[in-house]
């Protein structure tokens, strides 16, 4: 059996492309083992770390995982709680018991969340149904602000390494920004100009996601707008 790597690090790969041959390589992300070869399942960028071959998708929708922090929009009130749209084929449920630590009285559900409200929630369960929770700290209802939609595959770039990018955006613009892992971003600020500037900066991160030195570029852009 031959052990051979067919790709270079950071190379773009397409579905079905053979990435490595032999049993000593380990697939990760969107790569899979196919007999004695490792192939990619999506259009994405491949990375090689030792014997681990990883593929990250360039595009595609959001697929929920437990403990993800997402932004959703309440679409309907039901007997069990709220139904929330999270940019995914199936809607998520926010049960009454996971919505708040305080007791929710009958007929007072709209005091907490009503139709059209945006919530920052955590995913507690992914199975037949997707369950959300807003009980613990950072999770809450999002008030007046702008919501923009970005590709979920670019979310790690918007957050940056250990939150460096998002911190830069928040500090230089003075706006309040919440990023949901499902691709929704909520921006709130006193100054509309600045909110629009942040919006533009995020759009730029999305279009130039693969380039380096983005944080400096964003900082320059936001500071330039202040004058």
């Amino acid at each position, binding site marked *: 059996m031959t052990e051979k790597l067919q790709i270079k690090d950071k190379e773009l790969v397409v*579905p079905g492309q053979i990435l490595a041959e032999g049993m000593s390589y380990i697939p990760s992300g969107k790569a899979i083992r196919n007999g004695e070869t490792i192939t990619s399942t*999506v*259009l994405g960028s491949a990375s090689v770390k030792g014997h681990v071959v990883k593929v990250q998708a360039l595009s595609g929708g959001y697929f929920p995982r437990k403990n993800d922090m997402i932004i959703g929009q309440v679409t309907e009130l039901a007997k069990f709680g709220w139904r929330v749209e999270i940019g995914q084929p199936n809607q998520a449920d926010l049960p009454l018991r996971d919505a708040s630590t305080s007791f929710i009285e009958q007929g007072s559900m709209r005091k907490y969340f009503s139709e059209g409200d945006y919530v920052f929630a955590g995913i507690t369960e992914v199975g037949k149904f997707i369950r959300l929770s807003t009980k613990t700290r950072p999770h809450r209802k999002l008030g007046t602000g702008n919501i923009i939609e970005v590709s979920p595959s670019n979310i790690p770039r918007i957050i940056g390494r250990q939150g460096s990018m998002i911190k830069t955006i928040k500090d230089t613009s003075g706006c309040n920004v919440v990023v949901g892992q499902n691709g929704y971003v909520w921006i709130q600020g006193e100054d509309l100009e600045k909110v629009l500037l942040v919006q533009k900066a995020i759009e730029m991160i999305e279009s130039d996601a693969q380039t380096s030195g983005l944080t400096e570029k964003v900082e320059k852009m936001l500071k330039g707008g202040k004058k």
Partner: protein
Amino acid sequence: MAGKSSEPMMVKGKRLDGRKTNEMRPMKIKMGVVPQAVGSAEFSMGKTTVVAAVYGPKEVHPRHMMIPDRALIRVKYDMLPFSTTDRIRPGPNRRSKEISKVMSSALEAAVYTKKYPATVIDIFVQITNANAGTRTAAINAASAALAHAGIEMRDLVCSVAAGKADGTVMLDLFQPEDNFGEADLPVAMMPNSEGITLIQMDGDLTKKEFDESMKLVTEAMPILYELQKKALINGEASFEGGKVK
């Protein structure tokens, strides 16, 4: 197969448009032509031009079409009224329904449908200009659009037709060869695993001629694969004069 032409189909070993028997028409592919779709591609093969757009995975409507454990691949193949020489009535007809059906099964074989349970992936294919080989062009465009949409697939699906005109077996028939020829054999394959996902035969071929046609098609697959791969990575690609650019 609309009768015999008075003109010969082969002149001095060359076809009416100057190609050799094992040569494909010049091709072009461009990604992301439909901005509101999740993934899209425009593909042209000679004078045949198609646009494919992929929407989804999303919730299934009507509900009864939902498959609980996997995704439904729903294809709509549509020829635009101005795509042919005679105007064709818009809307679905017997032919377009059949092609939609075979395309859906040809592409379903390549998609990991179990990864998207209870959802639908909608693929809309519009034929903007028809000059024979629309279903093969549509499959190439749809496969590239699916990959562009970030859908998990086993392989890309490549497709081209072979056939017989004027007694000669040839690759990638164009309009006169298709109209006055004796047989047409569209094939779709997954080049890496060499699995056939679509094969239809219109007209008659002997066993020998069939084997010859399949050989021509199999040899053309790496070119189509390279073309789709280049287009997905660079945004566009073309095939002209035997080279993929």
